[in-house]
């Protein structure tokens, strides 16, 4: 991030996440942590698990390379009343566990006639920008949309994992937390001024839906997945400073089911609505958000979608850059649509 005036906080996002995990294991002996190479001193490929195995050796399980199997084990722990958290090393491998997630974890909640609690949180690092290539860089969120009783969340710099993770693990049904890998090293932000221009507030009491703004009367709202927030933020600064276009950013912690109510107050000013995400084209989260918005406000102009190209994620950095959505793509799209500062009539 090249923003100026970032608020001073020394915590990085991975540290916030790690602290959240510690608190979970500390506070409740039903909480387990499973995944590949999660023991200390390694603490998992991205270090989210650091310290856990030292403090809670009996509830941290390092697993064989068996994604289907260990998600199944977590399902069994959950059946037995426990609250497992599973780490998938790279989100791309979650496809191996698709059956246990969709056909067992999610279905168990309702397919036996009476609601059966199934506590399970799957952590799933996703996304590119690191040159890992096609099988280690996908944004796999889209593939999990629309499963009854499977909630989807996304890590963001704005949301406090120590507050939110306990709440989502306490739900009676499973969830997946997608985590953009490039966020880990970035500073944890939150309510208040996040730089010299933008302020963050939450639209709901649970502090699930973050709202980043400079002014109360924006020309566009970007609904951003947590992982695309940094690009949106940078784009918003540029739009403001270079194009005099004011955009606000809404970052929902919960991707699915998408809670459209929180948007209602913002939409009264009826600006153009965009959904921004890193996922590649087709079957996107944005399409789902657009459908939910269209259902709630059938007379609005359609939500516009900004996402990565219709492509695998190539390995070389310069090629990867061309595929993944960048701040300048957002700037260009929004500024072109809005024709500088004057919104055209068709945005209604």
């Amino acid at each position, binding site marked *: 991030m090249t923003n100026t005036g970032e608020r001073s906080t020394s915590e990085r996002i991975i540290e916030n996440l790690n602290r959240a995990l510690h608190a979970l294991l500390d506070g409740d002996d039903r909480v387990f942590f499973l995944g590949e190479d999660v023991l200390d001193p390694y603490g998992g490929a991205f270090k989210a698990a650091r310290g856990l195995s030292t403090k809670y050796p*009996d509830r941290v399980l390092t697993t*064989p390379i068996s994604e289907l199997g*260990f998600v*199944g084990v977590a399902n*069994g722990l959950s059946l037995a009343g426990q609250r497992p958290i599973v780490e998938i090393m790279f989100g791309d491998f979650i496809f191996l566990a698709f059956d246990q997630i969709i056909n*067992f974890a999610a279905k168990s909640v309702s397919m036996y006639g*009476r*609601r059966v609690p199934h506590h399970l949180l799957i952590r799933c690092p996703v996304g590119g920008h690191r040159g890992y290539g096609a099988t280690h860089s996908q944004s796999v969120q889209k593939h999990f949309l629309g499963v009854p009783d499977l909630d989807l969340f996304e890590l963001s710099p704005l949301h406090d994992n120590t507050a939110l993770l306990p709440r989502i693990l306490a739900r009676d049904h499973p969830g997946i937390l997608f985590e953009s890998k490039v966020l880990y090293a970035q500073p944890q932000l939150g309510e208040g001024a996040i730089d010299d221009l933008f302020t963050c507030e939450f639209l709901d009491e649970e502090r699930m839906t973050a709202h980043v703004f400079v002014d109360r009367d924006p020309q566009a709202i970007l609904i951003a997945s947590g992982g695309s927030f940094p690009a949106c933020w940078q784009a918003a600064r540029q739009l403001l400073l270079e194009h005099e276009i004011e955009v606000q950013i809404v970052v929902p912690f919960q991707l699915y089911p998408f809670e459209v109510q929180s948007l209602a107050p913002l939409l009264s000013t009826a600006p153009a609505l965009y959904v921004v995400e890193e996922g590649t084209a087709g079957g996107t989260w944005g399409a789902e958000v657009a459908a939910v918005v269209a259902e709630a406000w059938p007379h609005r102009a359609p939500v516009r979608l900004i996402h990565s190209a219709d492509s695998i994620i190539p390995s070389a950095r310069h090629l990867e850059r061309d595929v993944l959505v960048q701040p300048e793509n957002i700037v260009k799209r929004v500024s072109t649509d809005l024709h500088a500062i004057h919104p055209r009539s068709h945005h209604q």
Partner: protein
Amino acid sequence: MIPPANLSHPVSSANASACPSRETLELLLLIRHFEETLLRLFQSGKIHGTTHTCLGQEYIPVAVMPLLRDDDFVFSNHRGHGHYLARFRDPEGLLAEIMGREGGTCDGVGGSQHLRRDRYISTGVQGESLPVAVGAALQLRRKKRGGLAVPFIGDGTWGQGAVYEALNMAALWNAPVVVIVENNGIAQTTVRSANMAGNIEGRARAFGVEYLRCTGHEAEALQARLAPELDRVRQSGAPLVVEFETRRLAAHSKGDDTRTPEEVAALRAIDWGADYQARWPEIFAEVDARMRDRMAAIVEEVESRALSSWSNR
């Protein structure tokens, strides 16, 4: 870990020829009549969906279930009516479930393949339950009360990779899982030789999992044979695979049997039912008639119930 004694010594019919207790025979024949009744109900169009009967295999759950405690987990599969009936002796609930009537175990939402009651759970995807059983077993072991997780699978299910991921973790983590394998030599229409290279014993042992082969179809003898082995797992935590050699007498589900009538007749000739009938004709006839009548009465009663409603979604 205590090395189990004589694990490969088969239990055969010859080992025990005492007449089964009335209770055992009642359960065996209840399952049999339940399944036969279901097939008739399907044929007459009174049930929709699908079903997989355990005809020929009834003695396996009858042998296993009395050894299990309430806090043990049972994971059943598509061919699970016998498992359910042997655990709960609740033909009314199961029939109502399959017919979508009030009082069904899962209010008709689950159906034949998706049953849940207490710590008994079944689902329709082969192999899915094995890793789940490992997880449940880990928690049981943590509780230190000697609980077991007991998945039932068929021979064909050994095609699923999940089985091996689970065996590996069960052995590594000393998870008290007892896999009951109902090896009927066929998977839907595919005979074992077309499905499986090597054998189940070799596969279990290759993953450091103990193995026990059970032949014969005398429920009580099998139960006696299994009792100390299950106790051993309760104590040591070391997982165990128990393979029953058995036979499927009916079609895979309803009418889809590709075996020749001669093949099926040969299986029927060595069926436990035929054997029991020949050896203990009087008590067999008496219990058989009673269970037939009981099932008839149950069908009548359940059929008169209202359709189930799915209130607690």
